[in-house]
């Protein structure tokens, strides 16, 4: 896929960052912006270009005032991606491939918004070989995502999610967390509680073949890609309904957890549509 084919989405953040690097997001950084925040004396802020003549003339103490503005700054954007065994699942397209597509889209959109983009992959541990440090040049991250499309996850769990926070900057960042979230809720909760510093967008990758598109009837044997456990399934209407119920209950459970941390989840079932992500930001993030 060439870079031009990657679909972008638009995003914004509802908070002010403190980045020095000029960008497109509201910031608390003084600088050459358009956002007026007040006056101060020339001695405090010795920038003669910003002398406010009207304020200076009105001051009985005859001080010289300058106007203060906030600049717009760049916000680091990160994708943390689950590389555990379950991401290998997928009938038409493996989840890991879809995750790579989304990561590329995020990388491209971040570059368009003049934000640095970084990538962190984890499975059982945080994978140092699947890390791309934050950079204003997205090519390296896109190249990594291209490699990710052909990657076949090893049969390990996603326990590394608990350590991801160590690899993110101290500065508040926009973090897309791509996973199927097939992990114990306590593990997820523990991981999220270390990530509250950041603006997390959970991207939940589920596949219709996991529950709604199950075969009508029949016997089959299934293997867990992470633990290697095997089970025989006798699929029938009754049991299929139970599986769907189980997934719906799970959807509620992870929704509840994410909402406790004020991180509304973004579900991707079937194809990834970048416009839906734009919609997500309009819906959930105050401009």
């Amino acid at each position: 896929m060439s870079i031009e084919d990657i679909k972008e989405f638009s995003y914004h953040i509802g908070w002010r960052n403190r980045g020095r690097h000029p960008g497109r997001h509201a910031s608390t950084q003084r600088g050459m912006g358009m956002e007026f925040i007040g006056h101060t004396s020339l001695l405090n802020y010795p920038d003669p270009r910003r002398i406010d003549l009207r304020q200076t003339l009105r001051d009985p103490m005859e001080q010289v005032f300058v106007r203060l503005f906030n600049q717009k700054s760049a916000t680091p954007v990160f994708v943390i991606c689950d590389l555990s065994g379950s991401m290998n699942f997928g009938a038409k397209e493996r989840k890991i491939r879809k995750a790579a597509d989304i990561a590329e889209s995020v990388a491209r959109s971040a570059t368009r918004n003049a934000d640095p983009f970084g990538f962190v992959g984890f499975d059982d541990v945080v994978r140092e070989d699947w890390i791309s440090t934050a950079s204003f040049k997205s090519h390296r991250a896109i190249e990594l995502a291209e490699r990710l499309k052909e990657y076949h996850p090893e049969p390990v769990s996603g326990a590394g999610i608990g350590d991801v926070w160590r690899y993110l900057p101290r500065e508040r960042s926009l973090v897309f967390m791509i996973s199927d979230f097939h992990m114990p809720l306590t593990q997820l909760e523990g991981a999220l509680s270390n990530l509250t510093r950041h603006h997390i967008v959970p991207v939940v990758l589920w596949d219709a073949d996991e529950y709604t598109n199950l075969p009508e009837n029949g016997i089959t044997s299934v293997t867990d890609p992470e633990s290697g456990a095997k089970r025989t399934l006798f699929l029938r209407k009754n049991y299929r309904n139970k599986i769907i119920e189980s997934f719906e209950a799970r959807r509620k459970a992870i929704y509840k957890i994410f909402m406790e941390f004020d991180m509304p989840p973004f579900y991707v079932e079937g194809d990834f549509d970048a416009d839906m992500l734009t919609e997500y930001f309009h819906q959930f993030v105050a401009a």
Partner: protein
Amino acid sequence: MAFSQPWLLWLLPLALLPLVFQRTHSKSYSWLDMLPPDPLSDLIGLILKILAVLTLLFIVLGLGAPHTKQQEIERIGVGAQIALVLDRSASMDDAFSGSTTNAVGETKSAAAARLITQFVQSRKNDMLGMITFSNSAMYVLPLTENKEAMVAAVRATAGNALFQTNIGSGLTSGAGLFDNVPDSGSRALILLSDGAGRISAETQQKIRDWFDRMHISLYWIVLREPGGISIFDKNYAPNPDKALPPEIELFEFFKTMKTEFHAYEAEDPKSLQLAIDDINRKEKKPIKYLEKIPGKDLSSACFVLAAIIIALLLGIKYLEVKTWH
């Protein structure tokens, strides 16, 4: 229950292979915890495993060729333990009328075979054994209740033969048939010969002892050629210059036996028939005998069971999901 090839049972642990190796075509699912527990599915999984184990188990058992042990049932019937000692010397292949002229008629051996076959088939609960002899004894059949084997053995006596008549060896081997066989109370040895041979004194003593010890009564059927010496000839005057003819000498020896002895002379099939009928009449005493019931072969049953289970597994395979992933 026993196995013909018990060493193959060392393969039995192979039956556990389905428990060790998992199904290779198992589909990958993202997270099994998402699938609610289902006792029916678990049961089917368990049954499939058990069926696979049973298939291998029955195949290995079948290879081991299991069979039930042969059983012996004691029965009481009318009959005797009879050893047939047949002369196979070449002269038996002559007709009764002798070999000198262009003989026409049934040969002695053919007549004997035919009549003995009839005799065998007319007897119900006999144990019959058979020895043939010419220049030495040939062990044909141990004492058995199997009529078919006996008839086949009689039929097998036809064939080329040698020119000698070693009666002593035939008699000792015939007596040997009774060795290690439980005494049913009625034991007889039928010696069918044409002419006779001489028996050394040592062998004579041995025969006398054995017949006495094993309580064997002796029936001797002499197939006499017309014009030959008759053992019943009262007027026969031995030539003092020569040794006694072998027939007479043998007859004299048999008469000294401690057990019962009857002699018959047959000059044609008819008189042979009469002699055999007489023996048939005499040897009818109630006897105890053990009927052997052969063991049943169970290996084919094992294979059939394995085949049924494989068919069942194939049926389940047909139910298997093919459209997923």
